[in-house]
């Protein structure tokens, strides 16, 4: 578990330096940070205030998905709204019924905001601030309302020694009545909203300050520096998990520009992401690059077929490498991109430096490359609620 904790912490320390944790610890308010690129979208930071508010020790929160705060009477529509905001990568505020560790419900104003990488517009983290909402001054109660939900939970908790005791189940059997049994919905006051915003702002300013130490620089708003449509967040995240060196080009834009480049591709070629997004792949070519082979690639692209070729290509520093290149058409299943529904939307270009030492555990380079193609095909099946692989324009 030690390693697991270090890995979660690295999500922050690698991007904002080691000192960011101390600085965040100094900030008041209850908030958490999640990393959407890690499997399960786990919590990677929880503030002291959050531990006090929810009753969860901080260590217990790390690595869990933030939906652990939800419970039987949490409004599903509010949850859907949050999920949609995560998918669309936008800020969102909602009053929501959460549960503490001991099972008691409490109303909070949830303020959610994405933290963007300034250079390429990727979402690095989500920030969630929770501000407790006080009950309205004259709480109205339903006449004949059943005993408070918390009491039931309390009873269940008393049975912890006998985990199979039927109480545990009974509490949740009548979930269909949740609208009746839940507490009166609370409305966040202007003061609550301001407090959420000001907490979020102080976190942003901390992250921004420390991100400059690592040279990464994060910001609150996405800055689209390149003139190409960005991929949806779910597609970006799925692609981010693929470790092979590849780029995706958009078939339907003039000159087939690169719309995604993997980290491995950047380290192979020496370019930064912002330098190549929006460019045609030909920037890799130079003297000695075979025109016939390039022509062959084009022929396969036109016929919507896959091909594997050997090519001499150039890195940013001018050095050459023997490129084993596999190009495959990638279809789009959402049917909403471009004028050609369900047709080829992208091409994946998997590059491999043939002269470098690779450890494929006995597999041939071709197997390794086809594995990347498969992984890209899976990623492109990822759906955003809008059904589009491109991010909705704002």
């Amino acid at each position, binding site marked *: 578990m030690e390693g697991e904790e270090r890995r979660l912490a690295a999500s922050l320390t690698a991007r904002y330096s080691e000192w960011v944790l101390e600085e965040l610890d100094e900030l008041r308010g209850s908030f958490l940070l999640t990393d959407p690129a890690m499997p399960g979208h786990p919590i990677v930071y929880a503030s002291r205030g959050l531990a006090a508010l929810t009753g969860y020790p901080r260590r217990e929160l790390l690595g869990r998905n933030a939906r652990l705060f939800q419970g039987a009477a949490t409004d599903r529509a509010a949850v*859907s709204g949050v999920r949609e905001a995560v998918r669309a990568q936008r800020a969102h505020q909602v009053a929501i019924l959460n549960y503490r560790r001991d099972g008691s419900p409490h109303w909070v104003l949830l303020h959610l905001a994405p933290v963007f990488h300034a250079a390429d517009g990727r979402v690095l983290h989500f920030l969630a601030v929770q501000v407790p909402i006080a009950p309205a001054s004259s709480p109205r109660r339903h006449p004949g309302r059943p005993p408070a939900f918390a009491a039931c939970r309390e009873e269940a908790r008393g049975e912890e020694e006998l*985990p199979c005791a039927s109480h545990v*189940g009974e509490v*949740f059997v009548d979930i269909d009545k949740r609208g009746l049994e839940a507490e009166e919905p609370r409305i966040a006051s202007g003061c609550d909203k301001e407090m959420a915003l000001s907490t979020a702002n102080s976190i942003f300013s901390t992250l921004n300050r420390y991100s400059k130490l690592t040279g990464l620089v994060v910001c609150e708003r996405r800055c689209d520096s390149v003139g190409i449509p960005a991929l949806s967040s779910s597609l970006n995240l799925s692609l981010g998990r693929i470790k092979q060196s590849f780029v995706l080009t958009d078939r339907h834009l003039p000159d087939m520009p690169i719309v995604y480049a993997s980290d491995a591709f950047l380290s192979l070629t020496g370019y930064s992401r912002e330098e190549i997004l929006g460019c045609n792949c030909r920037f890799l070519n130079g003297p000695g690059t075979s025109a016939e082979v390039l022509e062959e690639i084009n022929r396969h692209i036109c016929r919507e077929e896959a091909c594997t070729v050997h090519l001499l290509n150039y890195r940013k520093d001018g050095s050459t490498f023997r490129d084993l290149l596999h190009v495959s058409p990638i279809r789009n*299943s959402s049917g909403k991109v471009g004028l050609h529904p369900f047709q080829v939307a992208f091409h994946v270009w998997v590059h491999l430096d043939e002269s470098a*030492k690779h450890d494929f555990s*006995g*597999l*041939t380079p071709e197997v390794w490359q086809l594995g990347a193609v498969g992984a890209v095909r899976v990623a492109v099946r990822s759906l955003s609620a809008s059904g589009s692989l491109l991010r909705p324009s704002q």
Partner: protein
Amino acid sequence: MVSATKLEGGYCFHSKNSPLDQPEGVKIHLYRLGIEQHDALKSFAYAGQGSPSLLDTFILSQWENFAQKGHMGYDVTACELKVIEGQRDFVIQMNDKWNTFPLKKHDKFGHPFGCLKPNSAKSYEELLLCIAEGEDTEPEVVPSTTPPNNGVLLIANAYPVEYGHIFLVPNSTNQLSSFWDKRMFGLITKIASEVNSTAFRVFFDDGTSIVPKHMFFQACYFANPLPVESASTVALYDGATRSGICVSEIVDYPLKALVFTSTNVNALVDVVSEACLALHEKNTVHSLMMSNNGRNVFLFPQVKNLVTGCYLSAWECCGYFVYHTKVDFDRASETGISNRMASFSFQDGEFEDLKKLCCAIADDLVT
């Protein structure tokens, strides 16, 4: 240039393309699991890190190769997908060519493979690889002419429900129980852990078996979590500090379901096996879905739908549906799907009993 030693020393993937040239018989790819993978904690320790796992890359590559050679009934990546926006975000696919029972023609998979005969090579095209326990510390891929007894055969489904759809069929002559083999389920769980991909999900259906008396699993790659994975859960049994097993109930979902989670492979396999055997003894149809690198197992008990007489498949239990006609696809609604799922759901009383049983099984494991 390619490093010569690597290529020569490496196992040539394309050797399979010319089986007739090999007098010794058809070669299949045998993936031997590393011994250290058997230690639950170690194998889970590196989850989510570093490069893709060897097995993940190999399965995707073999499937892609099979697809690029034109053996698929259709290109599933061209089949339209849609999220039905709502509380549950069901996912539906439009696919007029999907065939429910493609394994039917594979009568041969009901019997263990012996030595593969060269002259029948063509019919083994869909056999992507075989996975078995290994003896080395590191996993390895080796050529083999004989799939080992007690291994698992990975067979491409030419009528996939999603990218990477495979059948995982035990190749075993001495299965103790034709319905459920705990050792085999353990191997399947290890495979899910070894693939180490958040997209990889394994399915099991009891009662809808198309190869009677032979246990088999299916697996697919899904880019997004399946709807059931986003549903709220309420813990029923928390053995986190003891066996590592947690049993939870899925709430606010039309089909009653339980989810078992653990970082301890053996404990998870023990508890789920007990639960499945108990359900099978009562002739209760049920489906399983394994996700999160083999750490989560969802259990869906089902009742027979008296109108249709059929059952939901495991992915349907998870909220993923395939439609054959555009009209049905366009008309699909959250209410319609919820009602359909609810018609297969356990009654409250039955489900209470199952919950108690599963908690008791998990508790027994500790003492």
